[in-house]
């Protein structure tokens, strides 16, 4: 897997197939990105589980916080890690002890740990790094186009008006542009400095 640039079909396959998402590092503070990514994914019909040992006993949008992945007590399709790159490995190790294993480990925008990714992939888990599932869902559904963002997709079909809890079609035509010389250069520059 090329973790600098993901093919749209890879991301689309993940977002179309997972149903439950455990979000590690979810925050109850309503101006944190994890809070509004959690809220958006819940609104789009995903079964969301907030994981954060600092907030056990509280709820996030009516879902009770659990302290760790092991405490969820039921299978989850995807683990979405809202932690810095330096805190990724322990979460991946914890995920690798789950039975059954999650199908996907997703690391949030800004977070990347190639060694942790390699271990997850060796166990047959799909990995996405340095992306936001809310942004990717909004992009592939074109819901994000309301903000002038390049969804890099086209469709000549009339889309329904999104309502609460509604899953949107992510199966628009991809137009590329995620793998331009510019994006490769940006990815390279980032790896050069670290």
């Amino acid at each position, binding site marked *: 897997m090329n973790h600098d640039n993901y093919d749209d079909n890879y991301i689309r396959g993940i977002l179309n197939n997972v149903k439950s998402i455990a979000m590690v590092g979810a925050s109850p503070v309503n101006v944190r990105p994890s809070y509004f990514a959690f809220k958006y994914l819940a609104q789009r019909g995903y079964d969301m589980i907030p994981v954060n040992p600092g907030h056990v006993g509280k709820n996030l949008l009516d879902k009770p916080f659990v302290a760790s992945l092991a405490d969820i007590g039921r299978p989850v399709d995807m683990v979405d890690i809202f932690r810095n790159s330096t805190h990724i490995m322990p979460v991946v190790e914890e995920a690798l002890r789950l039975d059954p294993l999650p199908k996907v480990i997703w690391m949030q925008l800004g977070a990347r740990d190639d060694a942790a990714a390699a271990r997850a992939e060796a166990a047959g888990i799909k990995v996405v790094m340095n992306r936001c599932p809310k942004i990717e869902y909004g992009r592939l559904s074109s819901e*994000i186009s*309301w903000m002038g963002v390049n969804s890099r997709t*086209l469709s000549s079909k*009339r889309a329904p008006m999104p309502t609460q809890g509604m899953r949107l079609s992510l199966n628009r035509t991809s137009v590329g542009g995620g793998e331009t010389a510019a994006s490769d250069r940006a990815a390279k520059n980032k790896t050069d400095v670290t």
Partner: protein
Amino acid sequence: MTDRLPGFSTLAVHAGAQPDPTTGARATPIYQTTSFVFNDADHAASLFGLQAFGNIYTRIGNPTQAVLEERIAALEGGTAALAVASGHAAQVVVLQQLLMPGDEFIAARKLYGGSINQFSHAFKSFGWNVVWADPDDAGSFERAVTPHTKAIFIESIANPAGSITDIEAIAAVARKAGVPLIVDNTLATPYLIRPIDHGADIVVHSLTKFLGGHGNSLGGVIVDAGTFDWSKDNKYPMLSEPRPEYHGIRIQETFGNFAFAIACRVLGLRDLGPAISPFNAFMILTGIETLPLRMAKHCENARAVAEFLSGHPAVAAVNYSGLAGNPYNNLARKYAPKGAGAVFTFSLKGGYEAGVNLVSNLKLFSHLANVGDTRSLVIHPASTTHSQLDDAAKVKSGAAPDVVRLSIGIEDKEDLIADLEQALGA
């Protein structure tokens, strides 16, 4: 298997647009409204807090405008775009995100005269200090870099002389200095040059010109390439620091590789106010659908007119980079292989007087201060667009007193040549 990727002309027609969800309208509707109702208080709060996708008020964004933005982002190969009221508004909004009072930016000396004025005078009163460099010498940009430099600004094809800038050479300087390269791509359009492919971090346009293309609507746009790391050394606090007006959100952390476009919208456009009207966004969007056809014709006509003028006994020199022997011809072949644009200058052996006569004798060319119209246009920059510059600056920016600027339209080229021939002979 990866899907087959649509080409430029397909994107020019389709990118950003889809049938209207409520009515099924296929052309993009003109959402001529100031405001949009909220579903409930929570929805309103999420929109204001930048947590949900959707519309609030047309000074921040509008659905017709959003289609225009996504279309241009797709054509330029950027991650996102923001449309504003004019090309000049785009420049103010971009620099407001990057500069604090006392900061500097380096700009090419050959620019649209209005930009030279904006940078030298209006921006000076904001405490943003322009330092000029020579676009024909990347080393002059490197020598101008100081610890206060926050950005570099160039035009891909410079107005008025149509000279071509070596974008990659100047992008290398910007990268070394750790500052973004801003390219005004107005005269090239993404059909001829895509600056992001050559290292630009931000592209701006006056949509008023070739993109709109019909001389009927003002507009501007900012395209985010998604290539710059705004948080690296805290040089760009608008993007890297918590924003008090949005409960402490950090724009780059939240929006990743389209953070710059979001900053321009929610910190620039929202607070400075130069919104594009939905009607203008619609007119420009319609124009863009035929951009590839028009640009090919503009370039074909411009080359024919430039060749005609080069052979005319009353003409002293023609500055069209598409002509062999022009000093910019190699750069034109590299950066704009489909055509060297349709704006260029020439000078007359009879000097200033002959220029004034020519303009008054033309019957098909319109004498006005614009470029990039379907109609062919003519102007004498020294007495109009560049009149506020002193004589030395006029010469340096390519607008010497004997120079006439043409913007070649999409009429029949034989008619354009006949009009110039009669006017030069009169």
